[in-house]
């Protein structure tokens, strides 16, 4: 029963939960949830471009996805009105994505895979890439969590305190973008938003401390991921759709209780 696809799906859910905990929580602290949606769609364009250019440059399309997502993060970090910059980058990427998808008709299914996610179709390569990126994210966030917290609390106060706030802002937003691509590989560009944002947002409502938000977000994401996987084994449901439904429902339940 426990074939290797399921084992890979389980590993992916663990990685997803780590990303939802770290990047999701910082996204909520930075108050920039839209960045996740923006980088996910840019990532789609990046992947589509790499697939279209496959005959000329043959590297994993995920690299294209990561580069495009980081570009969105950079434009958000540079802009005065981050959400406007993300919105424009979002629109631009969608245009690029549609353009390349129309060029690669016979391969387009691979892009759809990124759009809707393919938790049960992940390859060892995918898992390897996701794991490497996640480890990098963990290391950076452990090393700089004080700086990240500080710039989320008050950017200018951090600058006066001698922290290179601009640099850390670029770094943190890039981390969030990379995390988005990693998560997207498992649950798809459409649902990554739910999986990264909802667990952390719910945890932020409920937890009484910073550490509490990180742990609770991981737990919520893990719970949602496993429910999705479990149901998809016995019923013809998309695992990521169920996971996203569970994650957002947790938020709504806590929201109702909180207010």
């Amino acid at each position, binding site marked *: 029963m426990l074939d290797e696809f399921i084992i890979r799906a389980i590993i992916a859910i663990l990685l997803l939960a780590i990303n939802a905990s770290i990047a999701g929580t910082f996204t909520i602290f930075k108050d920039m949830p839209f960045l996740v949606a923006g980088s996910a769609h840019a990532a789609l364009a990046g992947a589509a471009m790499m697939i279209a250019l496959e005959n000329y440059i043959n590297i994993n399309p995920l690299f294209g996805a990561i580069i495009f997502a980081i570009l969105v993060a950079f434009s958000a970090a540079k802009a005065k009105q981050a959400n406007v910059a993300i919105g424009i980058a979002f629109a631009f990427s969608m245009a690029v994505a549609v353009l390349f998808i129309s060029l690669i008709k016979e391969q387009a299914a691979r892009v759809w895979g990124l759009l809707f996610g393919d938790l049960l179709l992940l390859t060892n390569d995918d898992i390897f890439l996701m794991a490497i990126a996640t480890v990098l994210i963990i290391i950076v966030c452990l090393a700089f969590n004080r700086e990240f917290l500080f710039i989320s609390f008050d950017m*200018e*106060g951090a*600058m006066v305190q*001698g922290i290179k706030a601009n640099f850390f802002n670029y770094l943190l937003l890039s981390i969030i973008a990379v995390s988005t691509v990693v998560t997207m590989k498992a649950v798809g560009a459409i649902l990554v938003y739910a999986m990264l944002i909802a667990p952390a947002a719910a945890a932020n409502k409920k937890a*009484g401390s910073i550490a509490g938000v990180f742990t609770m977000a991981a737990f919520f994401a893990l719970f949602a991921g496993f429910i999705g996987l479990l149901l998809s084994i016995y019923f013809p449901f998309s695992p990521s759709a169920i996971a996203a439904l569970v994650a957002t429902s947790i938020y709504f339940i806590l929201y109702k209780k909180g207010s």
Partner: protein
Amino acid sequence: MIEVKNVSYAYNGNIALQNVTFSSKDEFVAVMGPNGSGKTTLIKLIMGLLESEKGEIKVFGREAKEARNLIGYMPQKDTIARHFPIRVKDIVLMGTTKRRFYTKEDIEKAKKSLEEVGLPHLWNERFSSLSQGQQQRVMFARALAKEPKLLILDEPFSAVDLPSRDKMIDILNEKRREGMEIIIVVHNINPILHEIDKVLLLNKKAIAFGSPREVLNQETLKKAYGTDIQIVVCKEGYCHPLIGDEHA
């Protein structure tokens, strides 16, 4: 020691400061002016958070940016995030050091500052669960915890109750005696009028700069606020403008 020479600043072409010049050394300086007169812009320039297009700013003889480690800053109340469960101690500790890990001394410094502002019991509380006035006093404690040579406060009293405000003023006086320089942005200058050395009256331009007795009169206030401001002369002979004053 601050030297501001012919400084102008514009946000996307909208002039916020025009040709402002003033300097102070070892003084307690208040900056006052109507909303949008460039008070916050001016102190941001002094901290190197903004860069002036024209003019020159020196802080303790250095470029503004290079003097940041000597400055303790309390931002205007609405610029800080309150939507996540950060603790009071984490915030005050931010002021103590640039190091990644806090030492025993850092923790002691932070505790001392929180005690100074009269809130030692809130050490472990969530910042967002505090009242606005308490939050402002925590931000004040963060600025103090740095033990700066220059303290810059942007509207530090806007939400605090009167006894707490007077306590903050007592602290400022004590820091003055210990040699700290202070720049304070205020709407209502009356509570500190007797304590300050200089006032900068601002409305995009520096309308007047000098001791409160020199600066505050009907004429300069009208120039800054664009309307006649009532004045009450107290028994020490200071002109108290009746702006944003709950005694008015």
